[in-house]
């Protein structure tokens, strides 16, 4: 399917904060089943519409690899956006944010948009990290902040789409060099023509990724 831009995202954060669940919720459970080991499991692509333009989000999940440091780091290169996720019911996952952030900043391109996600907002009774703390952390480090629940789907769409909007704005401002794929942005195979074809509905699954 034609798209104006392709944005690459990564999802990072401690084990068990619900990274895969967020992605699964967002991509509406579309995925490629494993037929053999040479393909692996991938369910990280979805089309959205911003400003009348079709944008394909390709999302890399790092679940299961959190402890393999050089593997997680390899994802940072070539990512335009990152969702940094913690679990509001586990303070340690909040405490580790600094480390994740430092790692991300050190290994990614300097314009990468980072969104801080406080997940599992449905588990209010077990909350260990106040919303205000998350907000303060985000303010201090210049991140966008949002509380989500992968379980109830609350704010999940918004989290991914807001990040995309931020990247899109940066492109408009000329901050990103869109001709360099190392920035995690790719221009679509054909020139974007938003007028005649009209924007498709958001939520269409993309084809296979690059």
């Amino acid at each position, binding site marked *: 399917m034609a798209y104006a831009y392709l944005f690459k995202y990564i999802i990072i954060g*401690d*084990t*068990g904060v619900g990274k*895969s*669940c967020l992605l*699964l919720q967002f991509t509406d*459970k579309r*995925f490629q*089943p*494993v037929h*053999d*080991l*040479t*393909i*692996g*499991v*991938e*369910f990280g692509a979805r089309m959205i519409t911003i400003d009348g333009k079709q944008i394909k989000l390709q999302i*890399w*999940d*790092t*679940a*299961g*690899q*959190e*402890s*393999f*440091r*050089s*593997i997680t*780091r*390899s*994802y940072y290169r*070539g990512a335009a956006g990152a969702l940094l996720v913690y679990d509001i019911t586990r303070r*340690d996952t909040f*405490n*580790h944010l*600094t*480390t994740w*952030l*430092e*790692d991300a*900043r*050190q*290994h*990614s*391109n*300097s314009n990468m948009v980072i969104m801080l996600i406080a997940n599992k907002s449905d588990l209010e009774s077990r909350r260990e990290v106040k919303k205000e703390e998350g907000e303060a952390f985000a303010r*201090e*480090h*210049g991140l966008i902040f949002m509380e989500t629940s992968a379980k109830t789907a609350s704010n999940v769409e918004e989290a991914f789409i807001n990040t995309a909007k931020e990247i899109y704005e940066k492109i408009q401002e000329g901050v990103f060099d869109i001709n360099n794929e190392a920035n995690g942005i790719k221009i679509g195979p054909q020139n974007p023509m938003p007028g005649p074809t009209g924007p498709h509905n958001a939520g269409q699954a993309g084809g296979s*990724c*690059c």
Partner: protein
Amino acid sequence: MFVEYLRTEHYNENGDLTDNNLLPRTVLLMHRWYLSSTELAGKLLSIYRNSSGENCNDFRLKTCHFMRYWILEFPAEFNLDLGLIQMTEEFRELASQLGYEEHINLIDISSIPSYDWMRKVTQRKKTSKKGKVCLLFDHLEPVELAEHLTFLEYKAFRRIAFTDYQSYVIHGSLVDNPTLERSIALFNGISKWVQLMVLSKPTPQQRAEVITKYINVAEKLLDLQNFNTLMSVVGGLSHSSISRLKDTHAHLSSDVTKVWNEMTELVSSNGNYCNYRKAFAECEGFKIPILGVHLKDLIAVHVIFPDWIDDNKVNTVKMQQLYVTLNELVSLQSASHHLETSMDLINLLTLSLDLYHTEDDIYKLSLVLEPRNPKSPTSPTTPNKPDVPLDWASGVTPKPDPTIINKHIRKLVESVFRNYDHDHDGYISQEDFESIAANFPFLDSFCVLDKDQDGLISKEEMMAYFLRAKSQFHCKMGPGFMHNFQEMTYRKPTFCEHCAGFLWGIIKQGYKCKDCGANCHKQCKDLLVLACRKLSRAASVGSSHGSLPGSPSIAPAQDDVFEFPPSGRESQDLDGRAITLVTGSSRKISVRLQRCTTSQATQTDPVWADSGWSDTGSHTFPKMKCKFYSKSTKNKGFAKWENEKPNMHPNMDIMEVQTMEQLQDHNGTETKEELISTEDR
């Protein structure tokens, strides 16, 4: 129910176990996802017991065939799982009661070899190649390094059981999962070691040589089909601490750069690691997968599919998909390799990989070697870097039990003497010792090596050297020891927390930690082995998971603790206590004991040599220091090195410089002379 599913499969199977039907194997590998092996055997037993009717005999035989197949395919289970063994015995008894002699033989498990090694985290010595080996990094061939790393990798990989994978995928944590944690620790350890060895060289040219060597190692790893170690070596070399060294990379030949690009391409995450997956699928025989990639697949499948679908039926789609990956991983564990290894070299590598430095330290070292160009806009520094210790996701940084480190040290020392004590008199030369120590860059030892100053190093002396330097192998010096010292004027008599001595003087007598209030002499503040109270909570959170390799349930094999000579015994005890500190259980330690270990040399030498500790040591650091070094105390080792650089012999290895410096610190000019005279000889 799972068993319902199993029964259908069982019927379909037609009693003929030689056909190509994969279902029995799938079921037998995957059943533990749903119920224990004992439970499964119990169900089979009751099926066997309760069958009746005209097909009764036939059906019982099929059940036995199924058991037989299970035993043949997964013998380890029948050796390790006590419940399963018991159940099998009951099965045999029942068969005997019912008079089926043939059945008893089918389910015989008496000839299964022992799989005891699966239970142990450490492994017994394998047959080692005879003859002497070189133990100097600079002289080791890439293929030797690759083979020995592969040996270590495989040793860690083949111990990871089905249930370890299962637990990681379901719980998403490494708690109570020592085998997997050890494998990941090895993976990360190799990446760090690669970086440290590169950064241990003072000139870009020399660093480029080390990088070239590791790229050659990576090629050999690919030949050996060891993708996991390949990934960690490539990961280490592509870490920003190395990739940012522009001067160094300028010295790489174009051939090497080409190979390097191929390697990074091969393990890149593009297309869900399609290059790696393709290459891996094409390999046959012995191979080691990139564990992280396959764990990711498992987690994805686990998140997508429910275990059960309506009516309590097993979700066979999920089972099938998990099976694809798990079967691959489990099958590879029984592949055999033909690696010729020298145990002496293994011992050297094992201890090298124990070396503990935070990523933060490594990166700062990189900045010292090739400072940032202020003009060129590079990646930005993290704004207002907080004073939080680098406490990575719990359980990731390996913190082995001190007894394990002791064992690694003892093994290394024995290996060194086996290869370097040519006349078997129990001594090696100082030069040989220093070459060996050069394999461990940045070991910040406090001790004087050649205590009796006879120019020869005994086993005990070498052992003492490493045991004291052990602080740098994981144990202390963890983030918990970072204090926030500030010069202080005391109005009341105050004593040093490190050496228990009085803080003399009228003003600025010593240093006080702003966070925990510990008081110290200026010269003692970097040696203090007392956790900072403010940080101790964070440290204990991390280490509560780090019980690992030495977890109490698993007794370290063949571990006789090294008997330290009488004078040093105290210090060994103390090392133990210092470690308790890091684990956060008890905070305070005996100051007097502390003194015995760390500043033994200074007792005979009351005035601290100025070279290491005077103002030049900490204040005349290059300008960039203020910019990048918020925690200057922590960087003592690097700062010292930086300041000593101008005096360096042009050809002298950085590590030799360090050794000399350390000697100077503790023994003043005396040792320096001795060192020179050694060179003259």
